[in-house]
């Protein structure tokens, strides 16, 4: 199985390299180290969010509220910073992680204890969190001049040619990769989504795993709230509108199975980078803006089609057969029992 996954990631790397080569043929300088560092930096937020989304998708759920969570948390820390400029930045970042995790825990609680399907629960909180951001701010913007220079400029500080924002993404990738492959929590995410029944027998609390997956996704969304506000130097209610779909797309392109249990950190990161390269390339290669959206969508569908074919040919077939032979509504009673 791992051989196939590696193959898919290599393929994605190859596709990204071909894309970069093709784009740089039309826009010289696109492949320069500086430009590539820029693209990675620009994609950092998407990478971090995609990793949170991945944790949730692994457990066979989905978190549609990440962008709304980002908006609320970003607004909250920006207002905190403008009202109390003396609060040190590490504390604000901790607050962002905390608020985000809290909002994620609400999603997790609804899915785990109340048993609402994840897509419905997070569709609801998507609206609620953005509404709360509006209530919190009264619709007003927090502007550049109201925030402290440290708050705005820290993620921009270049270290070895890459801004701290990019390093943050690398750090998150390293932590998440370790957690997903080396810890009980990480493995329980795969188990909970891959085969809930077997996971239960193996002593994994499926509902709990989902709860913590949502909390992780929320915490990372909260962190991104701060990063987003500092990057664009403004906080308003509509920031990152629709961004949750990009995170899902990044996961799907990266080969994270929406059926749960399959996917690697490398895949999610590459999926996000793939989107990042396209997003950064379209403005520089002089494609009509009217075509841009259509092209982005088309490329995503092709990538996913390709992935789906891969999935069907190998490995998944066995699981499908296993799935067929087990009772259809097994998952819900198991969760109930676990709770």
């Amino acid at each position, binding site marked *: 199985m791992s051989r196939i996954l590696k193959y898919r990631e290599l393929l994605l790397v190859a596709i990204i390299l071909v894309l970069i080569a093709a784009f740089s043929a039309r*826009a010289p*300088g*696109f492949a320069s180290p500086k*430009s590539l560092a*820029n693209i990675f930096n*620009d994609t950092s937020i998407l990478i971090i969010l995609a990793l949170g989304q991945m944790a949730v998708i692994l457990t066979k759920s989905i978190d549609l509220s990440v962008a709304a969570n980002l908006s609320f948390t970003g607004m909250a820390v920006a207002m905190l910073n403008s009202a109390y400029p003396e609060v040190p930045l590490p504390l604000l970042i901790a607050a962002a992680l905390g608020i985000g995790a809290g909002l994620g825990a609400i999603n997790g609680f609804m899915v785990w204890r109340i048993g609402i399907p994840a897509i419905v629960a997070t569709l609801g909180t998507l609206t609620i969190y953005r509404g709360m951001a509006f209530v919190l701010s009264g*619709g007003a*913007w927090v*502007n*550049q*001049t109201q925030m402290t220079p440290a708050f705005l400029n820290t993620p*921009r500080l270049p270290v070895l040619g890459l801004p701290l924002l990019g390093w943050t993404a690398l750090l998150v990738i390293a932590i998440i990769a370790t957690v997903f492959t080396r810890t009980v929590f990480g493995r329980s995410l795969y188990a909970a989504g891959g085969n809930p029944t077997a996971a239960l027998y193996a002593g994994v609390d499926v509902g709990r795993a989902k709860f913590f997956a949502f909390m992780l996704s929320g915490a990372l969304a909260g962190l991104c709230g701060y990063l*987003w506000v500092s*990057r*664009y*130097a*403004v906080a308003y209610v*509509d*920031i*990152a*509108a*629709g*961004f949750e779909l990009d995170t899902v797309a990044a996961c799907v392109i990266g080969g994270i199975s929406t059926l749960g249990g399959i996917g690697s950190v490398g895949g999610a990161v590459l999926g996000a980078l793939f989107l990042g390269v396209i*997003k*950064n390339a*379209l*403005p*520089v*290669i*002089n494609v009509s*803006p*009217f075509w841009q959206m259509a092209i982005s969508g088309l490329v995503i569908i092709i990538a996913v089609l390709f992935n789906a074919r891969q999935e069907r040919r190998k490995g998944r077939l066995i699981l499908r057969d296993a799935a067929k032979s087990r009772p259809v509504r097994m998952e819900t009673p198991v969760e109930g029992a676990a709770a």
Partner: protein
Amino acid sequence: MKVFAKLAAGTALGLALLTGAASAENIKIGLVVKSLGNGFFEAANKGAQEAAKEIGGVDIIYTGPTTTTAEGQIEVINALIAQKVDAIAISANDPDAVVPALKKAAQRGIKVISWDSGVNKDGRILHLNPSSNELIGNMCLKLAADHLPDGKGDFAILSATSTSTNQNTWIAEMKKQLPKYPGLSLVTTVYGDDLADKSYREAQGLLSSHPNVKVIVAPTTVGVLAASQAVKDAGKIGQVYVTGLGLPSEMAGAVHSGATKQFAIWNPIDLGYSAAQIAYRLVKKETDGKPGSEINVGRMGKIKVGENGEAAMADPFVYDAKNVDEFAKIF
């Protein structure tokens, strides 16, 4: 865009009839705003008070609901009718919902006009737009020319969505008036969808794919801010300038960083001033406010009423390093 939707008024409204009030008493003008506690309207009130002081014998009653609802405004209008005001100047939360209440006011001889955000034709005598599409298009070109040496060079437009009506109207006006600025050439128009991240990326794309572009004009608040940030992050301050339409509070940072020298937006003080002046002239029967008539509005000069009883006040007001901080406190 929300801010622009609020500012860029749709239609005009104004209904003015003569009151039977004795001239010995002060003329009372009710200035009805979308909601109280909004810096933009506080500034408009400041302008209206200025007009009242200049004219003399005029009281401005500044009022409005606490939330931006049409219901709240209807209550406020009824209260003003009961107070027997001579004129009402309203920035409406809904172009239709307030019409019945305003008609009632008109029947009692109260002159009604709308400003900023308009009321349907039946509900008012005239509507005062802060500016006109033509003036806005011209102002965007003028700002671009002012940022270029001798007014010659390449510029690009960063708009909101490709389907946004007011943006497209302004861009069309800019293209139409471009011949008035020889040497100024429009290289391309890109769309940031009023999303901070997309606008930022589009601005970055402009910087790398069109190195000749020296000015980015963004007639949208999100776009002008994101482009300023992109220019700053790319270290191109002083080489590439960003200008367009934005609010002083939002743009103050960009002006201080040097990414923007000047930008424009209508001035709420002038708008409140003009609304009060027009309401006063109508009460005094100096004008009937019919389409085609010209109204004297004190220091703002003469304003001509056009089709549908809509009038455009003036060029958007230009903000720069000298006045941006002062206005940033207001809106």
